[in-house]
């Protein structure tokens, strides 16, 4: 993944494998992905790789397809009516479209734009995922809850009220609860769809900090319309426009030395 020159479109693994290159197989790879909402062609030939244990940000103006693309990575778009996905999305080399969807979603977790805790207690929210995946056996539920809440930097704030309703928490706390809930099933990949857009700057900072601490345990993909956030947390960034991936590279290359004009126009604020 160590690239010396800015590449025009996607990072290709067939480019030099120097001694500094990371693991050979990217954690996830999307190949020739096309996606349709009914007749509307939302994603055009997207090719993108996500390296293991790195944070990738997807940026772009509203309606450019970045959220749509993210939602295909754990096949949650299949729950919508009249959608079609073409192409291949591979997890550790295996096409996720051929795998069992509930297994995929256990391995690829998702945090949504608005916090969506269940109408249950904080404790039950966290144990929900492991319970339905049969992973609670042989493991103390209380330990799992504490571990997940610590990873999400929420333990200290809620340790005395684990059995209260999740709705008693503030927006930022609820979102961290959703992150803890997603982490409780030990996912290999974590997808975050604009997780901080409904939160204040302090809550946002807490979440950005925790993303940096958990990336060595899972691969992270985050959609954001906040370019400063991408610059702060992401190792690589992909720029989407009108359903196409325009450019994908290391974050500081994208922001300081983009090779495409559309990218430059976007990050300098000429549109979007």
């Amino acid at each position: 993944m160590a690239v010396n020159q800015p590449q025009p479109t996607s990072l290709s693994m067939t480019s030099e494998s120097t001694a500094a290159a990371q693991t050979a197989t990217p954690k996830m790879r999307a190949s020739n992905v096309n996606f349709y909402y009914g007749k509307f062609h939302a994603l055009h030939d997207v090719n993108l790789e996500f390296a293991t244990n790195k944070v990738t940000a997807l940026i772009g103006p509203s309606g450019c397809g970045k959220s749509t693309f993210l939602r295909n990575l754990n096949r949650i778009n299949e729950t919508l009516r009249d959608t079609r996905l073409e192409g291949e999305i591979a997890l550790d080399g295996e096409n996720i479209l051929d795998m069992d969807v509930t297994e995929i979603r256990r391995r690829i977790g998702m945090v949504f734009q608005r916090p969506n805790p269940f109408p249950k207690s904080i404790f039950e929210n966290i144990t929900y995922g492991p319970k339905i995946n049969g992973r609670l056996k042989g493991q103390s539920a209380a330990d799992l809850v504490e571990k997940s809440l610590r990873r999400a930097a929420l333990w200290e704030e809620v340790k005395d009220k684990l059995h209260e309703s999740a709705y008693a928490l503030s927006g930022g706390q609820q979102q961290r609860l959703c992150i803890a809930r997603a982490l409780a099933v030990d996912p290999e990949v974590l997808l975050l769809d604009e997780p901080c857009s409904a939160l204040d700057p302090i809550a946002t900072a807490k979440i950005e900090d925790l993303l940096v601490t958990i990336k060595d345990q899972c691969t992270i993909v985050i959609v954001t319309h906040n370019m400063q956030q991408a610059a702060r947390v992401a190792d690589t960034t992909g720029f989407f426009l009108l359903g196409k991936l325009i450019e994908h590279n290391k974050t500081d290359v994208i922001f300081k030395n983009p090779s495409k004009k559309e990218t430059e126009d976007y990050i300098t604020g000429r549109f979007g």
Partner: protein
Amino acid sequence: MSLRNARRNTINNVMLTLCGLCAFLTVSTLFLILGYLVYNGGKSVNWAFFTRLPLPPGQDGGGLANAIAGSAMIVGMAAAIGLPVGFLAGVYLAEFGGKTISFWIRYTADLLNGIPSIVIGILAWGLIVVSMHRFSAIAGSIALSLMLIPITARSTEHFLLEVPRAMREGALALGATRWRTLATVIVPAARKGIMTGMILGVARISGETAPLLFTALNNQFWSNGPMDQTASLPVMIYTLALSPYDDWHRQAWAAGLVLLGLVLLATITARMIVSRGASLPR
């Protein structure tokens, strides 16, 4: 200019007053019915009413215990059949049906809702009573459940659809199957509304008379179980009111009061369940 204003204001005031009057009329009707029943039947509602069997005309001290127990049995069995079927049908409509299938099921359910209750009674009579060669409580229960199923299905569907999509996706994104998501997240989130719909549906069928007229028929004594003809409050009211005896008329008023009381109790309970805090985020 001011003449036009005066005219507009007059129309405004007249229409608002009319609306207020109609609202008052609606509310006062309930109190009128209640008051009339209490006046005519209040005296006859006593302990004997709830515990004793009907006595021949001219003898005081009879009650309608068999009708109360009979209603409870018939409505109970109807609920045992109609509520699960209606609930699962509502779940299907809300979660699984494709566009065309859901449309036709909904349409059929609404048509079924509109079938006159006496027609449902005749249907149950022809299918069950005639083939069994006997009147029975179970025939009445089946007739009532045919009325309960579409009500329950539509109200279950309505409350399931009110659960935000985000909650569904949150559960699915953790690796839950669709059924697991439904059973452990969505139905619990919608349970208040679903329960309310069920209570109101049961309250409604407990007052239906026509389906029971030629299925469960009536019984002056305790019924011998679901296979026997059974007394019920609505049919008793009908029988007693048409009789030439004053005693029995008083019993009919009392039965009406008790029936209305039960329905009101169910409705108020349903409202209290709903208003006891929201279970969904606003």
